[in-house]
Each structure stands twice: as C-alpha cells, then as structure tokens.
C-alpha cells in the first residue's frame, strides 16, 4: 500500500493499474501514484459495508424480539417481575403443550430419518428409470406450504373422507374406523410426510459423492446388502443424517400450519399456544412468556444443528 496518504476521494477517480494508464488513449488522473493497487478502496474496513443490512435487521427483528422478552417480564399490573413465568409454568395448558411439542417433534424427526434414509438409498443405489423425476418432484414438494398436507389428509382420513367412506360402503357400519386426524397421530403423520424430503435432499447429495466402487468391492468380497448398508453406506450418511435430522427437529418444533389445519382442540403445541394466547385471548404477557420458552428451545437446537453441520461440512 504505497498510497496510503492519498485522500479517499482519489480512490473514486484514480484506481487504474499501471498497464492501463500507460495506454495512449487513457486520460491519466494526475494524482494517481504509479503503482497503485486497485484494492486500495478497502481502507473502508469490511464491516462498514455490513452495517446497513445489520441495522435493518436489528430494527425489524432483534428489537422486536427484545420487546417480547421485555414484555414477558412485565405483568399487566405494571413493574418488572418474573411472576408471569411462574403463572405460565404452573398452568396445565403450558405443560401439556410443552410435552406434546417435544414428543411430536422427536417422533416426527425419527420417522423422517428412517423414511428419508430408506427412500434416498433406493433412489441413489438401486436406480430406476424416472429416479431423476422423483428427485425433481421432491424439490417441487419442498416449495409448497406444509398445511396442504393436512388439507389432503382431511380428504383422505377425515370424518367424511375417502377411507371412512370406503369402510362404511364395504361393512355397512355407520362410521369408519379412521378418527386419528384430530389426535396427535394425525399431526405426526402430516409432519413426517412434509419433512421427510428435507432429510432426503442432503442425503441424496451425500450419496452422490459416494464412490459406487466401494459398494462393488464390498459386494464382490461377499458382503450382503444389509451389511453394505450398515458398514459402508450408513457411516457415509451419518453427517447428512445428523444435519438433516436436527434441521427437521427445529422445524417440527416450530410447525404451526399443520397443527392449525387439523383444527384439533386436543393438540396444542407451543407455537399454537402463542397464537391462541395472543390472538384469541389477547393475553400478551403470557404469549410472550411461551414465546421466550419456544425461542430458547429452538434457538438452542438450531445452534446445535449449525455446529454439527459445520463440523461435518454438510
């Protein structure tokens, strides 16, 4: 940096390299030093350029979040106390929502991992014509909102839906056996359906890196498919499984559309509780308390996900 003494303004007009400036037709700005590197404008440190977007984000996202935290410790009577937390933690609705949320999320994640692993493995290692179309379909599937799955399930397993209709037609019974949609099992089914593609995508990417010669060698040495899956494919898939699984876990914890569309009074998750406290009951302090708990759980898990995926480079 030979020209550190130049004023910043000269950067704007005069940062040509020597070769260009010796060209006959080029107007040479008088102040330009002979060996002035073009990167000189970096004297504005990099973080300055990051300030505007960070400021916008801070205003519209971090400040509101801070207000939520503040609201959660300011009860209606005024002042600052953690009494709202005590009230909310003591309430039955919060406890059951917390349990429901956690077991639904864990159950869905486990289901997605198993299902996604099996499906991705078949696409990658037992290729069939149309496999690419299936992969494309998965991409499209990801771009649709989650509540469409619940809407479809209402037609299939709803009270007056397909499955029950077929059952009553065949057996002549008054109503069918499928009545799980308004229970947590309906939410579980919908979440597994919707989130499995989120596991399949990183898995397919990981499998495409796997040298299929490894499988051939293992197979020619006499390994049965089950053993190849266990000893060759699974170790290779673990990073992608960990990354995809923790992402899905966070998304399941935060899922709202699926639960809202089932319309079940019995299934209340934390996001649902936030919604009903704030919008239906206008109890903002309580809603903020639940929101803070929800943030803590999912941000904690999400940082875990980032750590895992950074470590494994997925």
């Amino acid at each position: 940096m030979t020209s550190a003494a130049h004023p910043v303004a000269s950067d704007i007009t005069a940062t040509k390299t020597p070769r260009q400036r010796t060209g006959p037709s080029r107007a040479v700005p008088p102040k330009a030093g002979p060996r002035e590197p073009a990167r000189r404008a970096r004297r504005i440190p990099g973080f300055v350029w990051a300030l505007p977007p960070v400021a916008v984000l801070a205003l519209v996202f971090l400040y509101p979040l801070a207000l939520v935290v503040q609201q959660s410790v300011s009860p209606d009577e005024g002042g600052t106390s953690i009494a709202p937390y005590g009230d909310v933690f003591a309430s039955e609705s919060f406890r059951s929502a917390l349990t429901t949320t956690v077991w639904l999320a864990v159950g869905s994640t486990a289901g997605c991992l198993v299902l996604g692993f099996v499906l991705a493995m078949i696409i990658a290692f037992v290729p069939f014509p149309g496999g690419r179309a299936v992969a494309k379909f998965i991409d499209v599937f990801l771009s649709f909102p989650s509540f469409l799955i619940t809407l479809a399930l209402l037609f299939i397993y709803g009270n007056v839906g397909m499955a029950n209709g077929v059952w009553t037609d065949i057996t002549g019974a008054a109503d069918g056996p499928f009545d799980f949609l308004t229970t947590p099992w309906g939410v579980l089914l919908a979440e597994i359906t919707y989130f499995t593609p989120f596991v399949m995508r990183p898995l397919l990417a990981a499998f495409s890196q796997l040298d299929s010669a490894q499988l051939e060698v293992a197979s020619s040495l006499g390994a049965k498919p089950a053993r190849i899956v266990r000893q060759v494919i699974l170790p290779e898939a673990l990073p992608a499984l960990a990354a995809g699984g923790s992402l899905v876990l966070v998304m399941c914890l935060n899922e709202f559309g699926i639960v809202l569309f089932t319309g079940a009074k019995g299934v209340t998750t934390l996001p649902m509780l936030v919604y009903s406290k704030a919008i239906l009951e206008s109890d903002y302090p309580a809603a903020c308390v639940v929101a803070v708990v929800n943030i803590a759980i999912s941000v904690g898990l999400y940082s875990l996900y980032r750590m895992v995926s950074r470590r494994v480079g997925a």
Partner: protein
Amino acid sequence: MLVHSRTGKWATWSVFFVLFVPLFAVPLLVILAASFTTNWSGAFPSGPTTEHYVAATGGDSLQALTTSLITAVSASLLALTIGSWAALAAASMRRRGRRFLDALFMLPVAVPSVVVGLAVLVAFSKPPMLLNGTRWIVILAHTILVTAFAYSSVSAAIVRLDPMYEQAAASLGARPGYVLWRIKLPLLLPSLTAAAGLCFALSMGELSATMMLYPPDWTPLPVQIFAATDRGSLFTGAAVAVVLMGTTLLVLLGVSKIRTRASYR
C-alpha cells in the same frame, strides 16, 4: 449397485413406490381432484364441477391472490436486497465477522415464525412505528422470514465463485464497485434468481406469522384457504390451494427460465 438380482430390484422398487406414492404423490393429487368435485365420501370423487374455481378465482379469493402476489414479490425483492448485501459484505470480512453475520442472519430461521409474528406485532403496534392494521406489517414479517434464505443461498454461491475473475478485473484496474457490478453480480445472477424463487415460494405459503398479523383488508391465500376449510368448505379450500400451488409453480418455472438465459452469458 446395491441389489443385483432382478427380483431383488423389483422388490426394492415396489417398496419405494408403496412408501413414496401414498405419502407424497397422493396428497397433492387428492387436493387437485377434490377441487373439481362436489362430493367425496367414497373411494372416488363424485359430481365433477368447476364451480369451486369460479369461487376460487373471483371475489375474495381473487383479491387474496393479488394480495399474496404483491406480498411475495415485495418481500422477496426486499429480502434479496438485504440478504445479498449482507452476504457480499460478509464475504469480504474476516472469519470472525463472517461467522457473526452468519449467525445473525440465520437467526430468523431458528426463531419460530409465530414468534416472529408476535414480536413484529408487539413492536409495531404503537407510535412512532405504527404499522399494525396495514399491509406493510405483513410484508415486513414476510421479509424478515425469507431474508435468512436469501442470505444463505447467496453466501453459499459466493463461496463457490471463482476468485480469478474478480482478481483479473481488479488487476486490470477495475474499481471495487465496478467489479461488483460487472463481474460478481452477473456471475451470481443464477443463484440470485434461484434465491428469489425460493423466497417467493416461501412467502406465498407463509401462514404462521401471517395469522398473527393480517389486517382484514389484506388476507393472503394461505389465510383464505384456512378460512375456507375452517368454515367447512373443504372443496373451495382445495381449489384455492390449487391456485396457490399453480401460481407458485408458474413463477418458479419463470424464474428458472431467467436462470438458463443468464447462464448462456
């Protein structure tokens, strides 16, 4: 290949389709089929009709469609601007600054969208920033939610960018602004359009934060679908859902066309 025998392959494929078709293909097909029927309480839909589409493309639903389109387009453009600006700034920073920006801009993904809705509602319901009850609060919330995706896809693309191009341009005397405008952004264009498509699709289907915020005169399509199913008109809801899926797919297709044209350059 994992399975060598012919029967083994067929067995595996049938397992695949037995799992895949009912779980993933059938739901979308069911919605499509239901949108054309008046009654479906047996194995097959009955009473073919296009009546629901008359309802789904007129009046309230048509307004919901334009509402959704305006919201999604403005939210994705805003998110793309903020997200790619931050991603470009992060790329020029050192390791620690970059990790800070990464964490900051990915945070909206980790925070539940209902909570984002609540936070925006709490913050913008009182002066001086009174946005509650206007369309801007919905657009703002959507922007916050999709910025993270714009940021992550643009910064992933910057990492893959060959630094030779900008170094060559800089060594020929191009100023940083010129390098950004003539080298980096054109090279990033495919990923920018892909990010725009992603943001658009996410914003079109956004329900959770919207449910917390929407004013009565600004109801996007997902809210409309929920309102229809909630009052029991499932079939109209299905038709509106088909309109939603169709619009999203059309825009994604258009965006991918831009992408292929950009890659010719």
